[in-house]
């Protein structure tokens, strides 16, 4: 077990290192002079050279890479990390809602296969999966925010009117539902397989045979065993969930990692953008790592080496 943990942590650190090198090299490959952009269109060549020197752009690439790491360690990463809480909240609540709905849909489907509910639920979750996330988000804004006026059209942000827990909850509803809708079909499929397997297994028959009430069978035996693969699925789908987090933050005007990255890129502020890329990479890589380790702890049947 200790060896497994050490190996997985080592892999995660190495992946993060490769991501940082890749982001850095991409930044250096770009076809224009960062110092010239920072200096503005009317700056003299002397000023540009001065700025380039100040940013360390005249150093060889490996030194520039180390300078960048130093800048990250001495505050750059912490600055970028300020944008993490809204993204993590959205990610966590969205996956929790998706997992909850997916479990119950999959459970009813597995209990009553080939019924109208089974087919209708499969078709509807599948169609939801084929809709672009930004469109789903905007349709929710359009219907609940602009037409029915039930919910705010923007997510939680730094606006003074948006402070306080009750405001936060209300403003979080639409972004969270949007994220859940985009992922519910995939998770329902996985849950369905896991629940099917659990329902057919001997321990469920034993549990029923010894007279356990049905809801206890479901919660204690089916749910627990179906949740095991769900941990892995959640870890694996984290990066693809984050694709949607980026665009959902953008539509709902939330100040998260994704919208910050988009703002930085649209403004050609690559210094901030690479820091954000690295923080986003760290979030998803650590998420997958935590999922893997949780799985190793949760399932005693598997011996990792």
């Amino acid at each position, binding site marked *: 077990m200790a060896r497994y943990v050490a190996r997985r942590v080592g892999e995660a650190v190495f*992946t993060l290192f490769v991501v940082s090198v890749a982001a850095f090299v991409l930044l250096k490959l770009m076809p224009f002079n960062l110092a010239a952009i920072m200096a503005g269109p009317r700056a003299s060549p002397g000023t540009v050279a001065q700025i380039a020197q100040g940013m360390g752009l005249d150093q060889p690439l490996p030194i520039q890479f180390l300078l960048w790491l130093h800048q990250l360690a001495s505050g750059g990463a912490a600055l970028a990390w300020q944008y993490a809480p809204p993204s993590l909240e959205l990610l966590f609540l969205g996956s929790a809602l998706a997992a909850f709905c997916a479990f119950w849909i999959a459970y009813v489907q597995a209990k009553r296969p080939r019924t109208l509910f089974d087919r209708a639920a499969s078709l509807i979750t599948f169609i939801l999966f084929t*809709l672009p996330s930004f469109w789903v988000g905007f349709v929710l804004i*359009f219907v609940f925010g602009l037409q029915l006026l039930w919910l705010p059209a923007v997510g939680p942000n730094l606006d003074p009117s948006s402070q306080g827990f009750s405001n936060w909850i209300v403003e979080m509803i639409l972004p969270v539902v949007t994220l859940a809708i985009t992922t519910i079909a995939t998770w329902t499929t996985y849950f369905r397989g896991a629940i099917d397997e659990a329902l057919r297994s001997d321990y469920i028959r034993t549990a029923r045979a010894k007279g356990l009430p049905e809801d206890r069978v479901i919660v204690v035996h089916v749910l627990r065993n179906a949740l095991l693969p769900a941990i892995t699925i959640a870890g694996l789908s984290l*990066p693809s969930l984050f694709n949607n987090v980026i*665009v959902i933050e953008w539509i709902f005007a939330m100040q998260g990692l994704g919208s910050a990255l988009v703002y930085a890129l649209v403004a050609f502020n690559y210094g901030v*953008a690479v820091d954000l890329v690295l923080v986003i990479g760290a979030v998803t*890589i650590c998420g997958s790592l935590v999922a893997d380790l949780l799985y190793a702890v949760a399932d005693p049947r598997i011996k990792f080496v």
Partner: protein
Amino acid sequence: MTTHPLTPGIDRQDVAIRLPRKWRRLFRHPLFWIGGSMLALLLLFSFLGPVFDKAAGEHYDMATQLFGPSFAHPLGTNVLGQDELAQLMVGGQRPILAGFATAIAAAIIGIATGLVAGYSGSVFDSVLMRITDMFLSIPQVVPILLIESLLGASTKSLIIVVALTAWPAAARIIRARTLIVRRQPFIEAAIACGDSHARILVHHVLPNLLDDIVVASTNLFANVVLVMAITTFIGLGLPPPWNWASMFAGNMDNIVGGQWWVVYPPGLAFSVLLVSVYFLGEAVRSALNPQESMEAQ
């Protein structure tokens, strides 16, 4: 009319023109007809529709901003007074073409990598799988946005970048299945017969993976179309002129409520495209491998 001596009564020509069983299974599958007709209609809509009036989508008129559906504008007009229906027709062309091109490119890379990794085993396999793990551990949109912003968005660079970030999902599926097929007795027999590895891969392994390749490719198609839509919506994907994602983005900021005709059609168009391709994929998969037919859907 010649009849075969051993099977009297059966016309020889009649037997000869019967389609192979897989094709018959495909043509009997309801999803083949549903998905096929949906896709055909969508292609006609996008590529044949605009032929009748080439300039209809471009003509703008400030006097008809955000007008509701009428006889002149069946789907209303957008924020610049352009005809929404004409825009929707032309706006489908590049998402569809770029989607297919990218999915094919990504599928080729992913299938080749998965096949080679799963078949060769050993160090080569671990290295290739480490690389796919790395790709799969960061959100795909992030490198695409970064690179498109650096290069300046163009259709060609978007196709390349999206294909280069999309293939690992397919590689994993194909590798897992290759590992299973590789252990089958007929592979051993082929090796014993002295077949080369390339021949074994193409003639023995690949035909047994066709259904997985179809599933992996349809999933890739959905992935690349949606990822391209996201990046285009943000403004760093397909460049102008408009397409389904960008026309939606352009109208979004100017909607104050009620203008459903500029809200619903672009997103539903994406859904029709993906649903039809999934249905076709499922029909082909089930014709290739009828045992594991997916229910519902």
